[in-house]
């Protein structure tokens, strides 16, 4: 390697380098690239979710324990470790549960100006948040409980991916009170 690298930390004892390699440039680092290729096949609930999502339909799973609705569906209720197979369709509208204003760009997302707002969107009828961007208003207008609706990609750009919603924009409806907004799965059965 000819690039400059930080020197190794000093050794406690002086090392005698054999004469035969004294004039040779020392090896300060090696590179051993690792590349592993995976063929990831989504499980049937995820496949059903992605196919529907490409048609602007958002599916969730309803817990057999207490009826809490999880979105996106994963096939289990993570609180109880039980399998779920009841599918529910959710509207593409909800409220901001909580949000974050980010000033650092996302590598590879040159289309996304900073600062941007990411948020947990709580779809009407769901008990957990759904990650998305909030736009269509000034960043400092975004608040917990703000009602929003999805802005989907153009029909021809929709696909079996998680990227079908461009962002969530304010609907102008009255906001949810902050203490009623956000994650409700964990106290659903109280």
């Amino acid at each position: 390697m000819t690039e400059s690298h930080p020197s190794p930390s000093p050794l406690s004892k002086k090392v005698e380098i054999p004469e035969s390699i004294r004039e040779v440039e020392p090896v300060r680092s090696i590179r051993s690239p690792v590349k592993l290729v995976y063929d990831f096949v989504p499980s049937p609930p995820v496949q059903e979710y992605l196919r529907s999502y490409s048609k602007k339909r958002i599916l969730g799973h309803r817990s057999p324990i207490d009826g809490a609705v999880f979105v996106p569906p994963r096939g289990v209720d993570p609180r109880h470790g039980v399998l779920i197979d009841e599918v529910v369709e959710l509207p593409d509208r909800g409220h901001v549960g909580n949000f974050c204003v980010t000033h650092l760009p996302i590598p590879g997302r040159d289309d996304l100006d900073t600062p941007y707002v990411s948020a947990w969107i709580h779809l009407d009828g769901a008990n957990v948040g759904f990650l998305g961007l909030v736009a269509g208003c000034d960043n400092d207008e975004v608040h917990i409980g703000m009602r929003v609706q999805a802005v989907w990609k153009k029909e021809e750009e929709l696909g079996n991916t998680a990227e079908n919603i461009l962002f969530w924009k304010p609907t102008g409806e009255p906001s949810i009170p902050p203490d009623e907004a956000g994650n409700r799965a964990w106290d659903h059965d109280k």
Partner: protein
Amino acid sequence: MSKSHNFRDIAVISVASHQTKILSQVNEVQLMADLISRSRNSAGLKQEEIGFTCSGSSDFLAGQAFSFVHTLDAVGAVPPISESHVEMDGAFALYEAWVKLQIGEVDTALVYSYGKPSAGSVIDVLATQLDPYYVSPLWPDCFSLAGLQARSLLDKGSISLERMSEVAMRSQKNAFDNPNGVRSSEDISLDDLMSEPAIADPLRKSDLSEIADGGCAVILAADNKADSLCDRPAWIKGIDHRIDSHTLGARDLTRSPSASLAAEKAGRNSDRLDIAEIHGITSAQELILEKEFALEDETKINPSGGALASDTVMASGLIRIAEVASRIISGQVDRGLAHATSGPCLQQNLVCIMEGK
């Protein structure tokens, strides 16, 4: 183990496992939700009644960082649980749970592990566990390294090609009655096996473990708790794990001193063994282990077919424990040895001796 340490009596009281060539209808989380709830249900325990939960899996195998956190969805971790994870076969997670139970703070533990090697190239994934300077950059696959090991054994004259095929035949016939046996045959002959071409010379296809997706869940309980939850617990009389050098060239690959020492420390010699479930990824490795454990004709070896019949990286070792435990719990056998390995060419070895009372 020495009596002076006042070890608690700890037993396997319930097991559930599943292996198949390719897991296509469920992901790891769904598979484990099913196996974990089956193991808990047959022990009559709810998650909040379990004192400690420990799992084994590999992010390199899953191709995903912190993949084990996803799998906690299958456990039901609310209200919050005491939990740990090892990036090793589930047998080593069981060892951690056994230590936790020995400390005496908890009386029950859930141990599980899983692997879905069908998502990638497991032989390449395993190359990344090797010495990163001299060996890993050459990308030797696990079966090629095991092939060098088998060749050393042949050169030394301690095994023969025929003995290897006999082990392969034993695996396929024993696996015939095992619902988790991926490669099995009721009537395969030695001639059939010996006419197969070599893949990692001298190893033929049947000498190599059959890679499979799957998982395993095990419930442990201590003292009276085990007796109250299970009619015939599989008491762990000894458990120990040992390690040989990571440097392949520094080892005599025809032996596995760490396996032998682990068996000795686990109390292999204190009584006869009805069965032994040993974990080798090749027929030749099973032959090394038979010798290191000094297994005699009275011991039935790998009644499940072993890892040769279905090998789920990260779970094959725990499944060996489950196979022995389930036979003790059902009353088929009284005493058995379960073995798990990790690393290249039988580098790390765990031995667990179980007994019905």
